[in-house]
C-alpha cells in the first residue's frame, strides 16, 4: 500500500472512531445512568418488598446492557470481555417465590456487583474516554471557524471575548493561534482517536473481568454448564430412545406381522393379501418418514454434508417467512460447535416465525479470524418484546451456547425490531 492510501485508511479509522465514540458517549451515559439509578432504587426497595419483584428484571437489563458492550468491544476492536454470570439452576422455582429466588441468586453473584461498579465507571471515565475521540475530531472545527472570522461574534478586538481551549480570543491574531491549536488537536485525533476508544473498552474489560481470585466463580460456571450439557444430552438420548421405540420400531414389528399374515393368506385369499401388502408398504414409508425427522433432530444431513452455512440456508428455505441468509465462513468449525450453532439459529428462527409476526428475517453468519469468533446475528422486523427469561426458548439457547463459552445478546424493544446476536469462540479448519 502506498503512503497516501495508508494515510486515507488512518483518517477513515480516526473518523469512524470519532463517530463511534460520540454514539457510545451519548448512548452509554444515558443507558448506564438510567440503569444504575434503577438498580440502586430497586435494591433499596427490596426492604419494602417491591424490589424483590423488580430487581431480577432490572439486573437482567443490566446484563443485556453489559453484553451489548461486550459484543461491540469484540466487533470493533477485537477486545474480548468475558461474561462470567452464574447460570440459574435448571430447577429454579417459578410462581410467587420465583422472583425472590432469582433475586437472591443474582445478588449473590459477584458478577452483578461488578456490573454495577462498571455502570458507575462507564458513566464517568467511560463517558470521557468515549467522548475524547469525538471531541478531537469535532472541536478543531470551531478553531478553524474562529480563524475564518467567527471571532468577530465574540469580541471587537479590544478585549478577550471567548476562550478556545487555553487560547484567549481577542482578535484575528489570537484566532489564528486558535487555528494552530485546532490543527494540533486534529493531528492528535488523527493518530490517537482509535487508540483512545480502545482505552474505553480496555477500561470496561478491567472492571468487568473477574479477578484471579474469582477463579472459583469460573469453576462454578464450568461445573454448571457441564451439568447442563450432560443433562441436555441425557434428555436428548431419552427422547430419541422413546421416538424409536414408539415409532419406527413399532412400525417394523407391525410390518413383520403383516408379512407373516400375507404369507398365510397369499393362496387362500389373494385379495386380502394384496390389501395387507399395500398396508405393509405404507407402514414402511411412514417408518422412513419418522426416521428422517428423527435424524434431522439429531444432526441435520445438510449440516453433515455441507457445514453450517448451507445448513442455515437450507433451513431458511423451509421457513414460511422470507429469509435472507448471508454467510462468510472461510472453513468449517468443529462438529459440536456447528451443531450447537445450528440448533441455536433454528430455535431463534422458530421463535421469530412463531411469536414476532415478522414478514422478513435476516441471518448473518460470519467468522472473524482476528478474534476467533463465530458471530451469528438474526434480525427480524417483527413486533419485538422478546426476552431471555426463565423458561423462554432463548434461555435454553444461552444454556446450550454456554457449554462453548458462547454468549447471547438480545435487543428487542417493544415495537421491534428484534436482533439476537450469538458469539462462540472457535477456530475454523
Amino acid at each position: 500500500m502506498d503512503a497516501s492510501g495508508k494515510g486515507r485508511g488512518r483518517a477513515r479509522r480516526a473518523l469512524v472512531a470519532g463517530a463511534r465514540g460520540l454514539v457510545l458517549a451519548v448512548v452509554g451515559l444515558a443507558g448506564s445512568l438510567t440503569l444504575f439509578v434503577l438498580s440502586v432504587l430497586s435494591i433499596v426497595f427490596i426492604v419494602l418488598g417491591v424490589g424483590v419483584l423488580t430487581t431480577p428484571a432490572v439486573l437482567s437489563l443490566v446484563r443485556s446492557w453489559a453484553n451489548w458492550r461486550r459484543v461491540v468491544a469484540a466487533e470493533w476492536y477485537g477486545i474480548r470481555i468475558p461474561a462470567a454470570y452464574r447460570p440459574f439452576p435448571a430447577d429454579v422455582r417459578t410462581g410467587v417465590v420465583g422472583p425472590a429466588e432469582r433475586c437472591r441468586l443474582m445478588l449473590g453473584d459477584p458478577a452483578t456487583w461488578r456490573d454495577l461498579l462498571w455502570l458507575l465507571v462507564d458513566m464517568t471515565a467511560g463517558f470521557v474516554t468515549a467522548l475524547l475521540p469525538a471531541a478531537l475530531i469535532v472541536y478543531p472545527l470551531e478553531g478553524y471557524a474562529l480563524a475564518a472570522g467567527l471571532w468577530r461574534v465574540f469580541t471587537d478586538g479590544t478585549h478577550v471575548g471567548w476562550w478556545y481551549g487555553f487560547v484567549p480570543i481577542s482578535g484575528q491574531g489570537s484566532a489564528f493561534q486558535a487555528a494552530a491549536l485546532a490543527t494540533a488537536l486534529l493531528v492528535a485525533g488523527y493518530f490517537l482517536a482509535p487508540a483512545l476508544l480502545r482505552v474505553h473498552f480496555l477500561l470496561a474489560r478491567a472492571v468487568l473481568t473477574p479477578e484471579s481470585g474469582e477463579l472459583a466463580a469460573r469453576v462454578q460456571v464450568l461445573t454448571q454448564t457441564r451439568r447442563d450439557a450432560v443433562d441436555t444430552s441425557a434428555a436428548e438420548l431419552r427422547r430419541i430412545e422413546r421416538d424409536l421405540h414408539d415409532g419406527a420400531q413399532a412400525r417394523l414389528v407391525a410390518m413383520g406381522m403383516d408379512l407373516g399374515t400375507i404369507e398365510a393368506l397369499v393362496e387362500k385369499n389373494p385379495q386380502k393379501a394384496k390389501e395387507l401388502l399395500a398396508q405393509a408398504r405404507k407402514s414402511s414409508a411412514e417408518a422412513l418418514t419418522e426416521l428422517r425427522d428423527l435424524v434431522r433432530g439429531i444432526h441435520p444431513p445438510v449440516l453433515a454434508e455441507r457445514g453450517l452455512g448451507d445448513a442455515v440456508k437450507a433451513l431458511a428455505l423451509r421457513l414460511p417467512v422470507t429469509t435472507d441468509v448471508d454467510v462468510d465462513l472461510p472453513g468449517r468449525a468443529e462438529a459440536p460447535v456447528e451443531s450447537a450453532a445450528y440448533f441455536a439459529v433454528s430455535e431463534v428462527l422458530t421463535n421469530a416465525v412463531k411469536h414476532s409476526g415478522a414478514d422478513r428475517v435476516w441471518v448473518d453468519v460470519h467468522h472473524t479470524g482476528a478474534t476467533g469468533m463465530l458471530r451469528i446475528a438474526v434480525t427480524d422486523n417483527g413486533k419485538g418484546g422478546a426476552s431471555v427469561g426463565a423458561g423462554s426458548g432463548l434461555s435454553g439457547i444461552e444454556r446450550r451456547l454456554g457449554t462453548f463459552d458462547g454468549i447471547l445478546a438480545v435487543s428487542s424493544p417493544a415495537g421491534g425490531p428484534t436482533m439476537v446476536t450469538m458469539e462462540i469462540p472457535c477456530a475454523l479448519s
Partner: protein
Amino acid sequence: MRVVLAEDLFLLRDGLVRMLEAYDFDVVAAVESGPELTKALAELEPDVAVVDVRLPPSHTDEGLQCALAARRARPGLPVLVLSQHVEQLYARELLADGNGGIGYLLKDRVFDADQFVDAVRRVAAGGTAMDPQVIQQLLSRRAAQAPLGGLTPREMEVLELMAQGRSNAAIAGQLVVTERAIAKHTSNIFLKLGLPVSDDDNRRVLAVIAYLDQGR
C-alpha cells in the same frame, strides 16, 4: 438404455440393479464411491446416471458434486439424484443450468417400482422428476407469501403434479380425467400465473418451478 448407478450401501445398490434390470435397463456400472462414479461417467457415456447424494470417501454430498461436475463437462447429461432427505437448496443447484434431464427423488420412491422406473425414463429423455416433497415445500412457502393467482383447487393439484415433471397423459391418468381436460387446466394455469406458454414439456416444468421458487 445404459445406466450408471452409484450407491454406497450394498443392499440398496444390489436391489436397484435387480429392479432396473427387471425393467430392461442395461446397468453398465454399479459403483460405490465418488471417484469411481466420475470415472464411469466420463468413460462409459451412459444414457442416464442414478446417483446417491452421499458417497464415500468423504461421506458428504460427494455424489451430487460429481453429478454436477459431469453435467458441466457434458451439458444435459441425464442424472437422477437419490437421497434420504430432500432439500430445496440442492434442488435449486441441480436445476440451475436449466438444461433439463434432472431428477431429484427421496430414496423412498423406489418402493413404487413402476413410478420410479417411469421417473428414470423421463429423466433419460431429458425431462424432469422432482420429488413431491420438494414441490410441496415450494408450494406451501409460495402460498404463505403470496396467493397463487386465484387457482382453483383442481388447478393446484395439476400444478403440483406438473411441477414434479409429469406429462399431461400421466397427470390425466392419476386424476382419472381426460388428457384434454388436463391440457385445458394447464393453459388456464399458465394464463393465471402469467407464464409464457411453451410446447416443450420440459421448458414448461422448469418455468413453473422457477415461478414457485422466485422471490427469495
